[in-house]
């Protein structure tokens, strides 16, 4: 009886008590990409190219070595770094999504592109993956350990599927709506992190280690050019304006700071 009383008191206090015992990660709010209302895919002739380099500006924080808490033989063979901010030579900023915000028609997706994320050494690779709406992303498990693929979608249905050590390739169902970027985690190995953008058109690029991006076969016109970076945020409120001529090449560079 006393236990129930105590439990009752506990509940009562829990209800009345106002304090700041804990708070979840406050930066959980992710800035999203902006998608056009509709998109018509067709053939593009005489399209132009938009390319550029994304660089980082500001004091560069030291890359954090991730704490490997289990499966050391597979996961801890080499040091793993927090990839939320990867800056290379000349301040080149990797893993930035650069894309056309207001494109309404253009080319179709290149069906030959392999849509894969590998789980290798308990790290997702690539860190940022573009996936067309409706296309199937294949999760690879090169590690001989169990992983679970947890995709934190909120517009589409969230996914949380075990990919056991025996399962080399696990294709995932295509999604219905454009969304993203959404976070991908492995709950078994809590440090593993990646991002997926489910996109309705093919004018999306992710910068390489030199910070470079290229958007090809862009129909001539003037576009809003947007970017998204995990640690630096987006320019959705004031995107760059880029004009590309038929067969021409336009350049747009970006310099990003920590948000």
């Amino acid at each position: 009886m006393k236990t129930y009383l105590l439990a009752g008191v506990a509940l009562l206090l829990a209800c009345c008590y106002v304090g700041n015992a804990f708070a979840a990660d406050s930066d959980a709010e992710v800035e999203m990409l902006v998608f056009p209302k509709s998109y018509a895919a067709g053939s593009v002739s005489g399209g132009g190219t938009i390319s550029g380099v994304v660089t980082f500006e500001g004091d560069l924080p030291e890359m954090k070595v991730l704490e490997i808490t289990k499966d050391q033989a597979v996961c801890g063979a080499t040091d793993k770094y927090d990839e939320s901010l990867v800056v290379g030579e000349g301040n080149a900023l990797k893993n930035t999504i650069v894309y056309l915000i207001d494109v309404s028609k253009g080319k179709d997706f290149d069906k030959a592109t392999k849509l894969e994320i590998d789980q290798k050494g308990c790290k997702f690779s690539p860190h940022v993956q573009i996936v067309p709406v409706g296309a199937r992303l294949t999760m690879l498990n090169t590690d001989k350990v169990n992983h679970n693929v947890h995709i934190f979608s909120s517009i589409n249905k969230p996914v949380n599927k075990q990919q056991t050590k025996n399962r080399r390739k696990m294709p995932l169902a295509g999604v219905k709506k454009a969304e993203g970027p959404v976070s991908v985690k492995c709950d078994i190995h809590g440090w593993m992190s990646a991002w997926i953008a489910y996109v309705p058109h093919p004018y999306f690029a992710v910068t390489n280690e030199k910070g470079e991006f290229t958007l090809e076969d862009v129909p001539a016109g003037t576009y809003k050019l947007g970017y998204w970076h995990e640690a630096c945020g987006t320019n959705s409120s004031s995107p760059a304006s880029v004009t590309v001529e038929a067969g021409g090449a336009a350049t747009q560079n970006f310099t990003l700071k920590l948000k």
Partner: protein
Amino acid sequence: MRTRNVTLLMLIFGIVVGTFHCAVTHAQNAPEASEKGKEVYEQSCAHCHGTEGRGDGSAAENLLPKPRDFTRGLYKIRSTESGQLPTDQDLFDIITIGMPGSSMPGWETSLSAADRWEVVAYIKTFYDGFKESEAPPRQISLEGKIAYSEESVETGKGLYVELGCVECHGNVGRGDGTSAPTLTDEWGFQTWPANLAQSWNFRGGADTEAIFKRFIGGIAGSPMPAFEGDSFLHFGLTSEESKRLTELENKDEMTEAEEAESEQFYEKMDEAVNIALNRVEGIELTAAEQQTYDDAMQVVYEKSWHLANYVKSLAPEERPEPAIGKNVLRSQYVQDELPGMEDAAWETLQSSHFPLVGQVVIEPRQFNPTIDSVNIKSFYNDTEVAFLFIWDDRTHTTGDETDETTGKPLEDALAIQFPVKVPQGPTAPKPYFLWGGRLPVYLWHWKASAPEQVVELTAKGINSAEVQDAQGALQAQGAYTDGQYKLWVKRALKTDDKKDLQLEPGVFVPIAFSAWDGANGDVDTKRVMSSWYTFVLEPVPSSRRFVYPPLIAVLSLGLLFGLRAVVQRRNS
């Protein structure tokens, strides 16, 4: 007589409720959302779940698990497949039964069934997905249930390892897997995997069907994945084919024919996966495809029932009765040496169960306890008493990390509390249960960093414990295996220290407990504890019982013979 009355009352109540329940649940769906639903919701649910259903009510802050945010349409306890919304009945059942092990109570007695249905309808308005979906959510089929058997449990045990359940739930299911300490939920809050040995804390119930559904459908918003068909090894193959493929894969070198054979298996598996994905994407299946899918799923369902049976086998059917009333902690007398920690003699004793709750009276408080209870056994002889304390803790924390506010090491610990002087009689006052007050308490304090040491303390309040000058009266041994602590303690019944409790057979002694889980941030007053329970050295029936009854029998017999002799003499 009283028991019979109660039974009769329950029976009548059962019939009435049963009839009512049937009448209401005949309608498969909740009514249209109404003002009534809003009213009931705002009165009974909004404090925790928020007026807009975001799980951000005024009481939400200190609750863990957090109250559900209804705006995302993520529901943990469903009878439906992964990615599907719950049925109305699912929502109704949760409101009725509550979520064991969390702050969500059952509303069966405080809200009428009609009101609960109104709430179901109202909750659904927080998420547009309920309006958008035309087809009813796909439910998990419970057909072909495999009955519980030793054999099934054994098969399930193999699958438990194969599917990676151990990663979070641990070797024997106590929620102590190597991934357990780093898990977070959809909203970034720390969360712990279920301790499968404590079925009474299973959120959606502990029957085999419930376990099966959690496993197939996953627990949305938590790290628990859905074990959809192709999470299983060799999805799409029959058991025989799967066995054959494993055999082939284990060969160092395959012949051409074997290569071709395995290639056929891979193709068959790819086809099954493809069909399963089409199904999720909403593409209609042909009859042949449906057949392939059903065949593949039959194997999956069979395996899942085995696994559910295994999980079922890990916990007792019900929570053990707490050690109150007649069921107090009774130390059993032995004539000889007291058993050591690993002695088989402990197996002969039933343990007494003591539930523990978060300490919420004094700051810092523990609102989200991770230790559920402690189980205890005890033996004594003419000079000493020994205890075996057993409790589940998902992590083995020995003070490597420190608490940010106090700077004290975070480590697992247990404290056993007695009064310094046993209250004389049942109405005599006991010391305050939070480590004493005006009346002092005598404590045994054990820490995981020094498993062979128990420190004796005296306290007159939860923050005023003092280490006793005279130590060494206690022998201890502690061990941690698979998410469970075992602590063995031995002390003399009588000591020379006036600050110690002196023990005597037959005397009822108040006893209480505190426990700390370092990994859950427990330190100082932030802990779990119990109020006073009772402990007694079960008195040995006196050896005089072997003397007096026979003596009286002999005397009576003598008397009888004497009487007979007297009567006979008189008659003659």
